[in-house]
């Protein structure tokens, strides 16, 4: 019954290390004297995450299933292990000064980040709906707490409660979907489900459709797709901005990864129908996100709403049900993480008032180019990348997604997509207008920026990656393409 060797435990080495890191960090918090514990926790997690990435990298050849097919380690897992750990690492590196300002308990903050990363890693390696569920819950519960971390601010609490209630509600949908699927196919394993559906091809029972639909709702909620996005603006705005940057990149990437794996591997035979549903979801998500983002007067909210639009582009890539589309999705997730984290970090640096309703005003950016030219140029790069203008990685990512759509015959969707891209230019350009075209407002400028050395390093790294991959996309593209070969 219980055979350790057949569990292939070595394949989850990075995850085990991650748990070890979390335990060490907890110990650090308890053992070290009060003044030093922060550094100890942060330092041990930074080192630990680097070790996790190294372990993932050196064990990347050790592919296959583990735990009797519950999880699978393949190129796809490897890609997301690296991406998600890297994003978490960046967030851990830059958080210190900002969250101290918000009077947030530091050790808990870092630990919750690590636990949510663990949940995400489970999601991307899962080959069983139950493991995905486990991963989603581990990730989400950490995130609920992280959103509400800034407990002295009402808006933070409000966001956390909304996120939690709606999240718990959708979890029920997801579990119900799993239960129905188990009832139909007799298994929750993705490969088994795929085999079952192939067996009954042509006459898929109604319950299987219902199950797939409910599971889709669960993913759509986690990825904040319209019409399941209602939690996201409030959660994004209420959360500490570092967490907003995190949530709009890593958990979103994990949700899309699991979404992709479940629908490509398990429900591949039903692709004819779910692509049509996703077609509509993509259209409304792109358009609705844009319409909301157009009207925002806070940079943070603008970025939060526009992340809905970007999720729409990712759905376009997803629904192609094609290797190129899947690779485009991976590429876009990775580069979107870089440009979005960069943009949020600049927003943190420029923001002068964290209080509710006042912060993150466009006015803070007036004439930034003449005040802090390098910061303004960095933000220019991020805005151009988010708007999809060359020579940035954002342009290439969009190009690749719409290219995949055209290849799979979705020319109409590609046209709607690029038109949405054009609409998004308007609000990204608006920030550029404030930074470059408006005159400085020296009376209302905050005297100093909220910028720590580690933030500068991370912003510079993001600029570098966005431009480098924009000019030489092959660097990332080949990696993304190899990573998805296992799925189709």
């Amino acid at each position: 019954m219980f055979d350790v060797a057949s569990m292939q435990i070595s394949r989850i080495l990075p995850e085990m290390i991650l748990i070890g890191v979390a335990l060490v960090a907890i110990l650090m918090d308890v053992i070290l004297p009060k003044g030093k514990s922060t550094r100890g926790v942060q330092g041990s997690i930074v080192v630990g995450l680097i070790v996790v990435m190294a372990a993932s990298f050196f064990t990347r050849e050790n592919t296959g299933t583990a735990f009797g097919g519950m999880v699978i380690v393949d190129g796809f897992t490897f890609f997301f292990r690296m991406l998600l750990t890297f994003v978490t690492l960046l967030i851990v590196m830059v958080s210190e000064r900002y969250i101290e300002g918000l009077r947030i308990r530091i050790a808990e903050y870092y630990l919750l980040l690590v636990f949510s990363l663990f949940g995400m890693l489970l999601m991307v390696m899962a080959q069983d709906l139950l493991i995905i569920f486990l991963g989603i819950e581990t990730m989400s519960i950490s995130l609920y707490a992280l959103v509400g971390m800034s407990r002295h601010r009402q808006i933070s609490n409000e966001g956390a409660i909304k996120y939690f209630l709606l999240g718990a509600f959708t979890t029920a949908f997801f579990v119900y979907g799993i239960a129905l699927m188990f009832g139909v196919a007799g298994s929750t394993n993705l490969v088994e489900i795929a085999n079952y559906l192939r067996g009954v091809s042509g006459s898929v029972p109604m319950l299987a459709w219902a199950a797939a639909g409910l599971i889709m709702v669960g993913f759509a909620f986690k990825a904040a797709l319209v019409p399941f996005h209602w939690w996201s603006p409030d959660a994004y705005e209420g959360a500490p901005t570092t967490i907003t940057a995190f949530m709009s990149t890593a958990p979103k990437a994990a949700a899309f990864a699991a979404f992709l794996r479940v629908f490509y591997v398990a429900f591949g035979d039903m692709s004819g129908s779910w692509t049509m549903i996703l077609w509509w979801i993509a259209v409304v998500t792109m358009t609705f996100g844009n319409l909301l983002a157009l009207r925002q007067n806070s940079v943070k909210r603008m970025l939060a709403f526009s992340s809905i639009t970007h999720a729409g582009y990712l759905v376009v890539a997803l629904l192609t049900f094609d290797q190129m589309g899947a690779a485009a999705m991976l590429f876009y997730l990775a580069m979107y993480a870089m440009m979005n984290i960069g943009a949020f970090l600049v927003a943190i640096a420029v923001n002068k008032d964290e209080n509710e309703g006042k912060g993150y005003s466009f006015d803070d950016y007036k004439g930034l180019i003449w005040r802090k030219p390098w910061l303004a140029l960095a933000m220019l790069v991020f805005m151009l990348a988010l708007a999809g203008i060359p020579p940035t990685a954002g342009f290439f990512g969009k190009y690749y997604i719409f290219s995949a759509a055209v290849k799979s015959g979705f020319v109409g969707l590609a046209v709607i997509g690029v038109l949405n891209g054009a609409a998004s230019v308007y609000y990204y350009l608006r920030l550029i207008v404030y930074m470059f075209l408006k005159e400085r407002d020296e009376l209302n400028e905050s005297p100093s920026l909220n910028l720590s050395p580690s933030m500068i390093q991370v912003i510079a790294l993001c600029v570098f990656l966005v431009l480098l991959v924009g000019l030489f996309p092959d660097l990332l593209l080949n990696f993304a393409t190899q990573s998805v070969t296992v799925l189709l």
Partner: protein
Amino acid sequence: MSLWLTSIVFIPLLGALILILVPSSRSALIRGWSFAVMMVGFLVSLPLFWTFDASSAAFQYVEKVPWIPSLGINYHLGLDGISLLLVLLTTFLGPIVILGSGAVTKRLKGYFISILLLQTGMLGTFLALDLFLFYIFWEVMLIPMYFLIGIWGGTERIYAAVKFFLYTMVGSLLMLVGIIWIYFNTTVPGVGHTFDYTLIMQHASFPAQAQLWLFGAFALAFAIKVPMFPFHTWLPDAHVQAPTAGSVILAGVLLKMGTYGYIRFAMPLFPEGVEFFKPAMIALAVIGIVYGAMLSIAQTDMKKLVAYSSVSHLGFVMLGLFALNAQAVSGAMIQMINHGLSTGALFLLVGVVYDRRHTRKIADYGGIAKVMPWYAVVFTIVALSSIGMPGLNGFIGEFLILVGAYQTAPVWTIIAATGVILAAIYLLWMIRRVFYGPMTHKENESLTDLKAREWATLLPLLIFIVWIGVYPKPFLSKFTVSIQQFLEQAIR
């Protein structure tokens, strides 16, 4: 493989990168360096004029290296008779634009960096032979132009800059979908899907229905850039708000990217589309000629007058292209160059008085020929060239276009010919009101005539205005063969 074209494209970029290191306070050094970079760029490109083999329609000085191999995207540059003169016009206007920026004093460094980046983008657009690369240059060039209008422009500059950006962006995104579609529907034996312009021309045959859509997508992007009626409304805003140098670049080179797009991509790639849309395009071109000219007559602002005259003149170019015969297309080609020279010169001339008086209202002048005789002479010569007076460059272009177009669309051509008369009305009327009659404003009595630096910007333009007018053969002969090939491709 020589790196000639690459160095022409990237010398300005290199210059801009070095300029970043120069401290902002050294304004003389910044000006001098920018001028030197543009001059080097011009001198490097100049020998193309002699070494180019005009008896061949093939692309010359071709450079091709893989850029994004997994998607079949190449860094691919090449020059033929159609792009040769446009490239030379661009590099030729470069140093002139720098000299013409004397009035710009604030934020000098950013200004010249923008101009240099813009130069790289424009040259790349004219030389790219890979559709993807072409699109990159086409888009990248928007950003520096946006800053030029938006930072160094007039009071309404932000509105104008955003309008310029969004108009161009929306148009070109549909072209991007078209480019992607072409890629997946072109299969070259041994290569697979490709963005390579020369391979696509040889191997591709798109279904007639698809050609209509594709022509529409490309034509919209280019029509906004040209700009053709009714997509022209961004142009007057951009021109009026842009600083003088920005207007010169805009009129001299940027608008030509639209017409170049037609002659290089939209027309030869989709002959079915050309056939189908030809009547509409000719009609829009002629409406643009007459409507632009009428709007010019009504203007009270000199710069706006010149801006609307661009709509009219570019209408002639479009009429010539869609007339689809050797004469008309040659006329359109030379008219592209002429418009760059004459309208560029007109914007510089308007800038001369604007720098002195800070107004462009025609009513604020009058009788200034007495105090600025040389200025009046130069202005009149340039205006006459723009009108199409025989002996000056404008005549050659418009004459060839009208003679050629008469063979295809006589009625429209007759209407278009009134555009020449209207041009005479608005330009000569402006000259009369600005230069002659009594001097009604006291401030104008102390105006000084052209300075040495202004001469230096105008004289080179005058030389070519007269040269092309008197002896156009060396210029026309450069693209005769290329146009033959173009006609074979574009006519179904």
